C-alpha cells in the first residue's frame, strides 16, 4: 500500500466510528461503542498464530452515564483530531496530542495515561496501529549489535548499515518505525535479547556475538513496540530463533511474556508484535540456588506480582508454574549481572553456552 492509500484507509476507518455514532444519535439511540475487555481474563491463545489475543468478552461504553459520555466525547475529539492530522499530512506524538487536548474544553485529558489508553482503544476498533494515524511513538527503540546488514529509509535517503561494522560501541539504534527497514544480509544464528545495558555491554566486550554468531539486542526494560516488532521481524523474516535474558524477578518475566506471548495492553497487535517462539534463558529462579547467586529478598509487591502471574493464562505452563512456585518458596530474586559474582566471564563462557545448548539453540 502506498502512503496515500494507507492514509485514506485510516481516515475511512476513523470516519466509520463517527458515522456509527451519528446514525445512533439519528436513530434516537444513546451512542455507544463496544470494545474487547482489556484484562488478563479476556486474552486467549490463538492456535493459528501462536500468540495471545483478546477473547470474546466485550465492554460496551454507552453515553448513558456522565463518565462514559465524557469518554465518548473525548474519543470523538481524538477521532476528529486524527482525521484532520492525516488530512493535513502532519504527525504528532502521544504526548503532543495530550497537550493539544488542553484546548478541547471538557474533552481534555486528565493524564497522559488516559489519552494513551484511548489511542489503544482506537487501534483495537480500527485494527490499525497508531502509526497509521500519524502518531509517533516517543520512546527510543532499543539497540542491536550483530552480523546483520540493514537498509533504513531515512529522511536523508536510504542508508545501508551493518550492525557490527558500521556501528559504534552502542550498536545500531532501532528506529521508531521498523516498517522502513529491510534486511539485506545476515550471518546470524540467533538473537539474544537482554533486559539491561550492563549485560548487553558484557556480551559485546566478551565477544559473544562473534563467537556464537549472535545478534545482541538491548531491550531497555519493557521493550517499546518497535523493539518487539524488530524481534518479530528478525525471527519471522530471517528465521532467527529469539532468546530472552532478563533479571530473575516477576517484572522481568512480564518483559519476556510481552515478547513471547503478547501483552494485555497490546493484545490487539499481537499478530505483528509477538514472537511466538521466543524462549526464556534466565535468570531462572532455579539458577539462584543452582549457582548460588547473590540475591535480594522478595518484596510484598514481588510476591503479589508472582501470585498474579500464577493466575495469568500466559504463564499457565508447567515450566512457569514450577519456576514461580519455586521462587515464592525461596523468597529470593537475582539480577542478571549477579553472575559476575562468579567472574566476569562466567555468563558468556559457562552459563549461556550451557543454557543455550540445553535449549537446542547452539
Amino acid at each position, binding site marked *: 500500500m502506498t502512503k496515500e492509500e494507507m492514509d485514506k484507509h485510516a481516515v475511512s476507518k*476513523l*470516519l466509520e466510528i*463517527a*458515522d456509527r*455514532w*451519528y446514525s445512533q*444519535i*439519528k436513530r*434516537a*439511540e*444513546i*451512542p455507544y461503542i463496544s470494545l474487547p475487555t482489556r484484562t488478563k481474563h479476556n486474552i486467549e491463545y490463538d492456535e493459528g498464530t501462536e500468540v495471545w489475543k483478546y477473547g470474546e468478552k466485550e465492554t460496551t461504553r454507552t*453515553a*448513558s*452515564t*456522565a463518565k462514559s*459520555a*465524557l469518554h*465518548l*466525547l473525548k474519543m*470523538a*475529539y481524538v*477521532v*476528529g483530531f486524527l*482525521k484532520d492530522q492525516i488530512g493535513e499530512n502532519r504527525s504528532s506524538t502521544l504526548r503532543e496530542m495530550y497537550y493539544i487536548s488542553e484546548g478541547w474544553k*471538557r*474533552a481534555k485529558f486528565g493524564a497522559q495515561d488516559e489519552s494513551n489508553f484511548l489511542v489503544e482503544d482506537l487501534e483495537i476498533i480500527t485494527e490499525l496501529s497508531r502509526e497509521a494515524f500519524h502518531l509517533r511513538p516517543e520512546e527510543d527503540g532499543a539497540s542491536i549489535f550483530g552480523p546483520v546488514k540493514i537498509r533504513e529509509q531515512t529522511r536523508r535517503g536510504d542508508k545501508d548499515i551493518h550492525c557490527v561494522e558500521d556501528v559504534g560501541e552502542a550498536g545500531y539504534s532501532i528506529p521508531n518505525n521498523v516498517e522502513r527497514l529491510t534486511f539485506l544480509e545476515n550471518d546470524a544464528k540467533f538473537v539474544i535479547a537482554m533486559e539491561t545495558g550492563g549485560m548487553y555491554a558484557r556480551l559485546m566486550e566478551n565477544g559473544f556475538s562473534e563467537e556464537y554468531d549472535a545478534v545482541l539486542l538491548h531491550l531497555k526494560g519493557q521493550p517499546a513496540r518497535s523493539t518487539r516488532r524488530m524481534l518479530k521481524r528478525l525471527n519471522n523474516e530471517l528465521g532467527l530463533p529469539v532468546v530472552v535474558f532478563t533479571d530473575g524477578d516477576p517484572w522481568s518475566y512480564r518483559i519476556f511474556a510481552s515478547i513471547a506471548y503478547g501483552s494485555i495492553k497490546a493484545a490487539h497487535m499481537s499478530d505483528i508484535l509477538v514472537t511466538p517462539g521466543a524462549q526464556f534463558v534466565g535468570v531462572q529462579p532455579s539458577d539462584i540456588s543452582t549457582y548460588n547467586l547473590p540475591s535480594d529478598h522478595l518484596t510484598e509487591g514481588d510476591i503479589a506480582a508472582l501470585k498474579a502471574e500464577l493466575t495469568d493464562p500466559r504463564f499457565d505452563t508447567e515450566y512457569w508454574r514450577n519456576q514461580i512456585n519455586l521462587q515464592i518458596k525461596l523468597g529470593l530474586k537475582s539480577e542478571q549481572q549477579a553472575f559476575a559474582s562468579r567472574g566476569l566471564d562466567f555468563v558468556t563462557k559457562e552459563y549461556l553456552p550451557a543454557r543455550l545448548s540445553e535449549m537446542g539453540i547452539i
Partner: protein
Amino acid sequence: MELAEQLAGQQKSISVAEFFEKNKHLLGFDSPTRGIITTIKEAVDNSLDACEEAEVLPDIFVGVKKVDKDVYRIIVEDNGPGIVPKQVPFVFGKLLYGSRFHQIKQSRGQQGIGISAAVLYAQLTTGVPAVVISRTSHKNKAHRFEIMIRTEANEPEVLKDEEIEWDRMHGTRIEIEFKTTLAAKKRLLDYLMYTSVVNPHARIKADIDGEVYNFERVNEETIVPPKAILPHPHGLELGQLKRIAAASDSNLKDFLINSFSRVGDKNADEIIGGSGLKESRKAKTLTNEELKKLLESMQNVEVPPPPASQCLSPIGENMIIRGIDKEFQLDFVRARTRKSKVFSGHPFIVEAAIGYGGKLESEGTATILRFANRVPLLYQQGACAITNSISGINWKAYNISQQGLPTGPVLILVHVASTNVPFTSESKDAVASIPEIEKEIVLALQDLGRDLKMFLGRRDRNKQFEERARAVCSILPDIAMKVSEIVEKPVPDISPLEGQIMKKVVAKKGVRDGFVEIMLSNYTNTAVSLTIYNMSPEDGKDASPKPDFVDNIGDEYNKLWKAVIEPDNMWSAKYKGTNGGTLDIRGVEEKKLVVIDLDN
C-alpha cells in the same frame, strides 16, 4: 382575747371565684398577653365541643377588636346548638359549672372553669360585663345577656336579659372585654391554625383587629361524638367510689356490674370474693373500711380495659394528614393512630404525624404540634411528656439531625386523646409524664421515623439520579456536535436521547417510505396510559393498530389512539401517507414528555 380567737375571727370561707381571682395563673391568665389566648381557646373549645355534640359542622368566628389603648373586645361565635336561656348565666357566670365534669369521655373542656374565668378576668380588668347571645333553634328568638360574676358567692349576676333578632338559626356568641395586648398575635394565629389542623371538619374565620384569616374545612363530615362511659374499676379512688356507692340502691353485685365499665358477672363475683364482703349488702350501707377493702379487691381483679372506641374520638390518620397538608403543603406527611391503651383505668389513644419539607423552615428546631383531646397545647413545651418523648428518640437513625429536639424542615404532631388527659396543671398546657403514654408516643414516632427515612432515601436517590442524568445531558450536545463535524452532516436533534436519559416518555412522528409512523417509548419507571392525537390529511383507515376514534375536521382527520405502555416498552402505529401532520400526547405530565417531529 386569746390569739387563737383573734385568728379565728379572721378565718372565713372563700369562694372558688375568689380563689381563682387571686390565682389567675392556675387557669392560664397569668399575663395580659396570655389572657387573650386563653379566653379565645376556652371559647373555641366550648364551641367545638358543642358543635360536635350536636353533630353540626363547626362554623366559628373569632374576633379581636381594639376598644381602647390596652383594652380589647374578644368575640367568639359559633353555629352550635346554643344554650337554653336559663342556663346561660351559669355557664358563663359561675365557675365550676359544667356538663362534663362527671362524664367519662373525651372532651376539650371539663371542669367548667375556662370561659367563666375569662368573664371573671374581664370584670377584674375593665368592669365591663360579658355579653352572651344564644339561640337554640329557629323556633326561638335569640337571648342577649349581660353577665357578671358575684365573686364572693361564685354566682352569676344578670344585668340584662333581652330577646333579640339574630341572623344565626342557632349558636352562641360571647363578647368579653378586658385589658390585654396583641403581643402574642403570632401565637394566637398558631393556636387557630393548629386547631384547624386537628379539627379539619371545622371552618374558622378570624378578624384580628381588622386583619381577616380563614382556616377552611377540608372535611365535610361531622365527627361522631364520643359517648360517656362508666368509670373503670382500675382508675378509681376512694372518694369517687364512696360517692357512687352512696347514690346506689342496688346490692353489691348489681352495683358493681351496673356502675362500672367492663365489670361482668364473673368479675363482680371475684371482686366481692376478694373483699370478704357479702354479695347481698347494699352498696350505700358500706362503711369506709369496707369500701377500702372493696376498692383494694377491685384493683386486684383483672378487668378488661375500658371501651375506648366509644368514649374516645381520635382524629384518624387520613384527617390528620389532610389537616396538616392544608396548612403546610408538605413534601411528605404520614400519620399513625395507635391502638387504645390504658393508664390507671383511663383509656387513651396516641396519634402522631411526621411531615417534611414544604413550607417548613429548613433551619432550626422542628415544628412541634402538641394536642390533647384535639386542643392545641401552646405553653410549657419543655415540661410536656410529648416533648420529652420526642427528644428521647434517636432521630439520627432516621436521617434527621438532632440537638435534643430534632432539627430541620420537620413537623412532628402528637395528639393524646383520653377520657382523662393527665395535665401537669389546671391551665392544661402540658401532658404529665405517664410511662404508658410516653411509650405509645415513642412507638408511634419511631414507626413514622422509618417511613420518613425511606422517603428521604428515595428523595436522595431521585436527586442523585437527576443530577447524573443532567450531567449526561450536558455532554450529549457536545458529542452530537463533534460527531456531526467529523462526518460533515447537520447536527441531529438529541431531545429523544435526553428524554431517554431523563426517564421520560418519548413520542416520535415521521414519514418513511410512504408511511406515517408514530412511535412512543416509555422510559419512565411506571406504566403510562396515553391518548394519542394525530391530525393529518389522511383518514388513517388502513392504520395498524386501528385508531380508537377518527374525527373529520375540515380537510383533516383527527385520529385518536389509546395506549398503555409499560416501562421500557414501546408502542407504534403506522398508516399510508406522506404528511404526518401534528402529534399531541395526553396522559403524562408535560415535564415527563418529549414529542419529536422527525420530518422537521
